[in-house]
């Protein structure tokens, strides 16, 4: 296999005019890279078509930090034991049963062999980050985060002679009689050209960055959503496949959506925009009213429901209010808190009715009961006679200075995706496609019907990416 430069400047079709690739990989994140590496190692001639420019390569994977991994005993940086049943039950809890058990168990079971595979392909792990000790048993953290993982995989691709084309926007996947023949792609904004292949792996993510599509699903509220990751996942390929009669799974309103700092950028704010103060706070909407139990469970178990909760409030905004006691109980925020010496003043500074906020906080304070406060586990310090209640960490908010943060829904990825078999093969209304596989966020909706389990996106991407690459290579070789 000849080694090809990943950045060779050219305008003709990659690898020369009419070249026929063994495996065309659409997308450039974790799942795509796992597929490309697996296929190239099997001996296939592989091309990666990444929609983003080189700096932003890797889709949402560049913002990730860990993957959830089954294991029978301490391995690498993971402590203890995390077995299939516990893992599956954790998934059932967050999805409320909306999952495909067969595919979910396949992802869970295969996650175990992924960790050594990732290490062998340059990914380095580190112990659970400070402030995330609760994940040290279940989630293996990437040293340097997801961008480091993405870099390692691109280096691997380069060493294997995989051709990588950046700013390659795939617009159409040509299907004829249940077979893929080529993709139509515009490279660096140029004219559409065809890239032919014997097989294709589609791993180009969800549609969350297409605000129009999000608005069709959610209504006008979608305009107020922030997108935590890449602006390049606009669902062009996903839509193209569904339009051509491929089967989809999932509900277009379902997504991995958390409440993030309302001041975060519209796209690509990533991890630093998260706010971990909710359990220690009172959260109100723009009318100054509480709307949900802030202390229902520890934050890692609840952060993923707050995006939808805030999305359901007027103007899709919330405000989390704490006092001086709680300021250092959670990881620092990237933007400084709004600070004031009285609740009224804080309300006005946050742009809500100060008197109304003060009334809500007084009612809350009056409903607090004595108890032993414990920030890292459910401490049973609950309100009495308050609706909605706060069932843990309910301490009066009475020590100035008071701090406030605005909250907005932050979408990580949408769950509407392609239906795949347990070999990652894409399903068409008329039956399985012969040479088309898909992986990553593009198919995660099969397993994640709703809710989110930290680190599971990367597990699905790695498991199905490798599977897709292996099957595609097997098909052509």
């Amino acid at each position: 296999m000849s080694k090809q430069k990943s950045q060779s400047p050219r305008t003709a079709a990659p690898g020369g005019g009419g070249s026929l690739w063994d495996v065309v990989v659409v997308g450039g994140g974790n799942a795509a890279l796992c597929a490309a590496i697996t296929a190239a190692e099997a001996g296939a001639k592989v091309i990666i078509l990444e929609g983003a420019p080189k700096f932003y390569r890797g889709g949402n994977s560049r913002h990730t930090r860990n993957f959830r991994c089954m294991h029978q005993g301490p391995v690498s940086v993971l402590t203890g034991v995390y077995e299939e049943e516990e893992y599956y039950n954790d998934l059932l809890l967050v999805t409320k049963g909306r999952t495909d058990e067969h595919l979910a168990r396949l992802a869970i079971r295969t996650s175990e062999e992924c960790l050594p595979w990732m290490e062998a392909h340059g990914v380095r792990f580190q112990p659970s980050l400070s402030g995330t000790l609760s994940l040290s048993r279940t989630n293996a953290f990437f040293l340097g985060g997801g961008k480091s993982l993405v870099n390692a995989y691109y280096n691997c691709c380069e060493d294997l002679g995989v051709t990588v084309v950046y700013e390659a926007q795939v617009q159409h996947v040509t299907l004829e009689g249940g077979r893929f023949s080529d993709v139509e792609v515009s490279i660096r904004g140029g004219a559409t050209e065809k890239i032919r292949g014997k097989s294709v792996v589609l791993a180009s993510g969800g549609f969350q960055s297409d605000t129009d599509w999000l608005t069709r699903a959610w209504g006008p509220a979608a305009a107020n959503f922030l997108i935590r990751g890449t602006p390049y996942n606009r669902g062009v390929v996903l839509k193209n496949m569904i339009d051509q009669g491929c089967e989809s799974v999932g509900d277009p309103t379902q997504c991995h959506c958390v409440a993030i700092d309302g001041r975060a950028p519209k796209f690509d704010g990533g991890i630093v925009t998260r706010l971990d103060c909710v359990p220690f706070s009172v959260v109100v909407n723009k009318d100054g009213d509480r709307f949900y139990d802030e202390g229902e469970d520890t934050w890692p178990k609840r952060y993923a429901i707050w995006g939808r909760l805030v999305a359901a409030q007027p103007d899709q905004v919330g405000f989390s209010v704490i006092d001086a006691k709680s300021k250092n109980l959670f990881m620092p925020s990237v933007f400084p808190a709004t600070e004031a010496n009285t609740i009224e003043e804080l309300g006005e500074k946050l742009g809500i009715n100060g008197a109304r906020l003060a009334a809500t906080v007084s009612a809350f304070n009056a409903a607090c009961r004595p108890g032993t406060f414990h920030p890292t586990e459910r401490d049973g310090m609950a309100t009495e006679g308050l609706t909605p209640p706060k069932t843990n960490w309910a301490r009066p908010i009475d020590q100035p200075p008071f701090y406030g943060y605005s909250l907005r829904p932050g979408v990580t990825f949408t769950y509407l995706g392609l239906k795949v078999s347990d070999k990652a093969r894409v399903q068409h209304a008329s039956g399985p496609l012969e040479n088309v596989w898909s992986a990553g966020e593009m198919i995660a909706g099969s397993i994640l019907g709703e809710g989110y389990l930290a680190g599971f996106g990367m597990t699905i991407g790695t498991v199905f990416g490798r599977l897709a690459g292996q099957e595609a290579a097997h098909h052509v070789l």
Partner: protein
Amino acid sequence: MSFETPGLINEARRQIEICNACRYCEGFCAVFPAMTRNTDFAAGDLSHLANLCHNCRGCSYSCQYTEPHEFALNVPAILAEVRQDSWERHIRPAALARAFHSRGVAIMGLMVLVIAVFFYAARSGGEGSFYAVFSHNTLVALFLPAFVLPLLSVALGLRSYWRETGGRRITPGDLKGAFASVAVMKNLAGGHGEGCNFEKENRYSQRRRFSHQAIMYGFLLCFAATGIATLMHYLLDMPAPYGLLSPPKLLGIPGGILMVLGGVDMILSKLKADPTLGAQRVWGGEMAFVALLVAVAASGLALYAATGSTLMPGLLALHLGTVLTLFLLLPFSKMVHGFFRLAALIVEQQKKRG
């Protein structure tokens, strides 16, 4: 740009607060775990983090937030700027520090000047042994103050730095931890032991770590050789030159070779590395400093090789000129990084203890 100007400190704080909300880089080096102790960063905290940073660049190549991202992080560069500024603020006279750190030409100019003076003096000297060219007492009279005064300047600077970063009374445990880190250059090992991202972008490499250790251990061997020779001269009445199997030569020759090889490799890797991930204004000064180290070691080796030949007086003048330049520039060149880095590692041991 100075630390007292709000620009540098505010920019450093802005970047570090973003890092502290992310923490993905915790495993690379000592800087990121140290950061998690704070939620607010005073000037002394930033100085401490800056001097802990070894410019391995792992964080930068792993960062989601470098330009063109709107957060525009460049942590290795801003910490290099703060670090550089801390040396220039604490070392007196500060004007000399500012003059030399950023100017390779000034360093080289001083070196040429000092060498020329030695050459001029050497013209009147005799042939044969070193001390026939320059009498021993002349050399001591020249070199002792040239060594002691710069060291005094460094000591005063360190005391001021120590106060700024909250250093306390040093325990044996602090020293053990700090020296263990220096001995293997742990902070250039990337956390996984495979090296850093200095010159091969996002691939790991041991090159900088190894070349740094070659220079450092080479320098220490040469320093030991000089120390032993001094003792032999005064206590045992055994003046130079010394034979191949004498302690000064057994230490000095391998030391000189390590310094030359390490220094040349350091220069080559620095030419390959991205200058925008360091303190760009001192790039030239850093290069000239490494070149000076190479010149010290290479001229010393050449001098030994030329013992007894007619080249000796000239090479002696060259060697003494480079050594004196190195001494004089001790507080005002990259050489100070060793003192401040060690201080930071000791303070870090103390802070970790709580």
